[in-house]
């Protein structure tokens, strides 16, 4: 079989880049998969008790027993990092689901009904956006006191305007498309149209964006816990561990860089995978 010049060119251009792109999805997905599994099954893992203090074995370097060494109270850094990651993931996903649920709904409603409804929703979004995001979360946490649910809400509120904007813009353009007009002409009610015609088309753009936002939320949680404004102790958080152990940075860098590595790899994986998903969606969009 002979290939035309065109076909040979195509293979040359697409081949390696495609494989590289697949790797860029596979590696982060693998890390995220392991992270989620570890977070879910943390109590069952064959790792030391993350809460047990051993004041004679403080700041031990990494070893077979303590993979990432021990902290200033002699607790196992690896086990605590796994628990901390659990908080990061719960808060990261929880707050984005919160933002997606509320923001997505508001955007859908604003984009579909437009007019006065749209105006009011936009006004509320403008007010939320009038505060520097992290400062708003800090303020909420400071007044309300630390708890898991509140961290999720405090960070989740920050995502509402962005999700609302995306949902609104997409709904606005979808509402003009033939299939929605057809549904309306056939006498379908607003709620039915929203649920059956508009919503399914919003899923793809919102998913890719959500992955990137989970990364942002995890950074936000880390910042809050670094300030001591996230989930209260004794529950370990990655930011809290880093804050507590940074006094011993020179003697026991593992106690800081251990949880830092968990944090970094998770956020990086979400960003890389999210970028790739976004890119593929864009390509699909362009192909349509």
């Amino acid at each position, binding site marked *: 079989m002979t290939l*035309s*010049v*065109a*076909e040979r*060119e*195509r293979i040359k*251009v697409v081949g390696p880049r495609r494989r590289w792109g697949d790797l860029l999805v596979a590696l982060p997905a693998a890390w995220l998969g392991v992270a989620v599994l570890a977070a879910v099954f943390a109590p069952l893992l064959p790792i030391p008790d993350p809460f047990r203090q051993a004041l004679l074995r403080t700041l031990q370097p990494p070893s077979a027993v303590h993979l990432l060494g021990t902290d200033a109270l002699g607790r196992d850094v690896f086990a605590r990092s796994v628990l901390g990651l659990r908080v990061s993931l719960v808060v990261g996903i929880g707050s984005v689901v919160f933002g997606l649920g509320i923001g997505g709904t508001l955007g859908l409603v604003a984009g579909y009904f437009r007019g006065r409804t749209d105006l009011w929703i936009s006004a509320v979004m403008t007010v939320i956006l009038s505060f520097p995001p992290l400062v708003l979360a800090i303020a909420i946490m400071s007044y309300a006191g630390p708890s898991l649910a509140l961290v999720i809400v405090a960070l989740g509120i920050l995502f509402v305007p962005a999700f609302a904007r995306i949902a609104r813009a997409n709904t606005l353009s979808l509402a003009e498309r033939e299939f929605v007009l057809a549904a309306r002409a056939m006498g379908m009610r607003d709620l039915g149209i929203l649920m059956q015609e508009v919503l399914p088309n919003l899923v793809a753009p919102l998913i890719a964006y959500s992955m990137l936002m989970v990364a942002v939320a995890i950074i936000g949680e880390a910042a809050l816990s670094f300030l001591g404004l996230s989930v209260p102790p004794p529950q370990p958080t990655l930011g809290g561990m880093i804050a507590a152990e940074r006094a011993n940075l020179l003697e026991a860098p593992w106690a800081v860089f251990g949880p830092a590595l968990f944090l970094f790899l998770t956020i990086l994986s979400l960003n890389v995978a999210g970028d790739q998903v976004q890119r593929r969606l864009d390509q699909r969009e362009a192909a349509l």
Partner: protein
Amino acid sequence: MNIADPLLSLRDLKSYLRTPRGLVRAVDGVTLDLAAGRTLGLVGESGCGKSVLARSILGLLPDAILQKAGGEIRFGGRDLRRSTEAELRKVRGREIAMIFQDPMTSLNPVLKVGPQIEQALRLHLGLRRTEARERAVDLLDQVGIPAARQRAVSYPHELSGGMRQRVMIAIALACDPKLLIADEPTTALDVTVQAQILDLLQEQQARRGMALILITHNLGVVAGMADEVAVMYAGRIVEHGPTAALLADPRMPYTAALLRSAPRLSDPPHTRLEAITGRPPVLVDPPAGCRFAPRCARSREDCRREPPEIEEAGTGRRFACWHPLELAHA
């Protein structure tokens, strides 16, 4: 025509473009001479390779896209194809200038008009700021822009399309180039303005004695201005000769078809050529024989087998066709 010592001489020029769909043979073996001071009309449908040819001469296609598949561009005693980027920069704007199709987007929107003319003057002629400013105003005046001094401090968006094209011409003329390449200079303009711009080009060319390559899909434009016409189809020159003779007596069927469908100045740009059925071939994988054969009423078996080479046919005419039209007016 002074064939012995042409100003610009293309020899078997090939410019292939790397695109996602494959390697496009946009210019595929063009041989052409142009003497100093003369006007060549380069004619063809959209996508026939005219603009790529023009950009190839100035080396304006990025290395990432262009594959220099071969050929020579001899100009002023050197081969531009083998010149370095630094050498080419001394030619661009100084000896060969170019006017682009769309004056609306070809001027920098955030710079005032005057400074956009001044940069070539300062770069190539080493003028100082104040001198360059005076020259720029003078140039604006020469290309027929009223109240040139005031216009020099306008932004492009404050000018009409015709005025912007005049500014583009002023930029091109700034350093008195020996060759001006005008790529569809009137396509994007109002009908009433088109003739004015063409008049301006003709007037300036005569005054400065520069050569002009006028790229257009519009044979009407060529008839009034060009000394000679080259017809381009699918990356190749298919017919070339003195304007009057070529228009009166086309030999290549494509030229004849173009003439039959010749749009008037009054037609909107990019009007489909209705008399020619079918579309130009995709230049990723061109047909083996004559590239016009699939659309040609006169094509026979042999046309599809082997491509005709462009050959001299006396009185300065060349064409590439196995079964040419007879001379009617000879």
